[in-house]
């Protein structure tokens, strides 16, 4: 069959374009192969879940009654000076126990993004600046912060005492009426019950965990069920991206602090000290693991606090967040400045090295990722 010349002119480009698109689609769906090194690095992000035990600094950690009491406290507006909010106002279960806002809003707006509350038993430090070395101390912070719940220990104690639903469990769990304790001890006990509850908020097994275990078992069918884009993203994550140097291990964080070149001025003329300020607060706190309220007489978990080092490079450093359940925790970064995961990946792709501390991390440099690579990394992150 002969094709008229004008039609042939049109047909060839169409055929060529069709061939290109088919090839591209085939490449996108092509099986991804991993080197032994890549496999080992991917396997290092599991297995999940990680087994944890009770917190030795908190004598009610893991106690069923304390967990139930902690949940009631978490949801109670009686912990707020104006009864206008509770912990659950900003830590919404449907939003990854965050609030979905760039910056947290208590009685007034605060300077940082509300952190999610998953897998907290795995933390060494709490908060973006690590100002707390334990979960009950971190739970005290919003109670006392005038921008958040705005209480004092002396105001909190009668609130609990006058509310039978909160006073009775206190007596059952801590062995005395809340008014039999001094106000500070009562507040710490309440925070320990809050911590006992928050420790139970864990993320389940993810698509990545099934892929990771399939890779360990060499289960080709299960490996193939993990999206090809996510597999390519995993290669980038442990390869050229070197994301796993900080987003390390089964919880996808090394739990420490880094400067990633984000601004740390909440407003003109005011600086967020980041980790530098966190260490100062930690050292002053009566509620750290070296203080009198640690229930572990041997101070067995206080080593990090005893040895933590304060340096100039801590300015502008913020805690590396876990990436588990990361789709639920937008927006991202300590200042909530990245709305989407693609924005986060683009930040590392185009990072401005001049924004990094001169004496800080030399690890970060622009990754110069293609749009396809950014999409692959996002596809991977979505499976965590």
């Amino acid at each position, binding site marked *: 069959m002969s094709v008229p010349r004008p039609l042939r002119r049109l047909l060839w480009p169409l055929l060529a374009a069709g061939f290109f698109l088919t090839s591209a689609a085939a490449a996108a769906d092509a099986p991804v192969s991993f080197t032994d*090194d890549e496999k080992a690095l991917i396997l290092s992000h599991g297995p999940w879940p990680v087994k944890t035990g009770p917190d030795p600094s908190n004598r009610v950690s893991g106690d069923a009654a304390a967990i139930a009491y902690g949940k009631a406290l978490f949801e109670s507006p009686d912990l707020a000076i104006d009864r206008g909010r509770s912990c659950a106002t900003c830590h919404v279960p449907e939003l990854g126990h965050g609030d979905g806002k760039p910056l947290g809003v208590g009685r007034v707006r605060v300077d940082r993004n509300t952190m999610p509350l998953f897998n907290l038993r795995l933390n060494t430090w709490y908060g973006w600046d690590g100002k707390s070395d334990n979960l009950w101390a971190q739970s005290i912070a919003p109670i006392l912060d005038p921008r958040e719940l705005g209480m004092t220990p002396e105001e909190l104690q009668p609130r609990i005492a006058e509310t039978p639903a909160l006073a009775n469990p206190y007596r059952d769990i801590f062995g005395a009426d809340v008014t039999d304790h001094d106000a500070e001890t009562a507040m710490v006990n309440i925070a320990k019950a809050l911590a006992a509850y928050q420790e139970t908020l864990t993320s389940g097994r993810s698509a990545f965990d099934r892929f990771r275990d399939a890779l360990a078992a060499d289960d080709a069918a299960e490996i193939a069920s993990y999206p090809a884009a996510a597999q390519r993203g995993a290669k980038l994550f442990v390869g050229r991206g070197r994301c796993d*140097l900080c987003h390390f291990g089964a919880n996808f964080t*090394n739990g*420490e602090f880094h400067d990633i070149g984000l601004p740390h001025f909440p407003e003109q003329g005011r600086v967020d000290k980041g980790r530098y300020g966190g260490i100062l607060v930690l050292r002053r706190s009566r509620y750290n693991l070296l203080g009198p309220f640690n229930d572990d007489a041997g101070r067995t978990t206080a080593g990090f606090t005893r040895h933590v080092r304060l*340096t100039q490079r801590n300015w502008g450093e913020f805690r590396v967040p876990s990436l588990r359940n990361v789709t639920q925790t937008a927006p991202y970064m300590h200042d909530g400045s990245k709305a989407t995961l693609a924005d986060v990946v683009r930040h590392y792709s185009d990072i401005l090295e001049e924004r990094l501390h001169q004496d800080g991390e030399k690890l970060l440099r622009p990754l110069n990722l293609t749009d396809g690579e950014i999409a692959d990394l996002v596809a991977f992150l979505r499976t965590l």
Partner: protein
Amino acid sequence: MRKLPLAAAAFVLAGTAPALAEHCPKDMLAAMENRLSADGTAVAYKTDPAKIAVGKPFSIEVVACVDGAAATAPTRIRVDAGMPMHGHGMNYTPSEKKLGPGHSKFDGMVFHMPGAWQITFDVYEGDKCRRLTEKVKIGR
């Protein structure tokens, strides 16, 4: 980058264990798994646990001596570590427990990232300080 026990990594990086300074008390130094020496100063050390894991505290027990006409214990030993390629040190300052002349244990060491770390041993004899370094690779 592979995860290696510290002793193995030290051996790989150093090639072979260096000889001790001539007059140092060999029985004390021999008890340690890893040895360094340079310019008449010898350091031997072991870590607890032997295998260092990212983010997990460990301690280093060190013996050091300065070789002269007779071996002498240094007046002070200081241990620290960093990642030269990343331009940062540890996030923690180890605390020293003196176990004897030229013999100390340093608690609170933490390597918070995988990769190439360098442990520094500063051995003081009065005002004079001699630095010995050990490269250690920590796997992911």
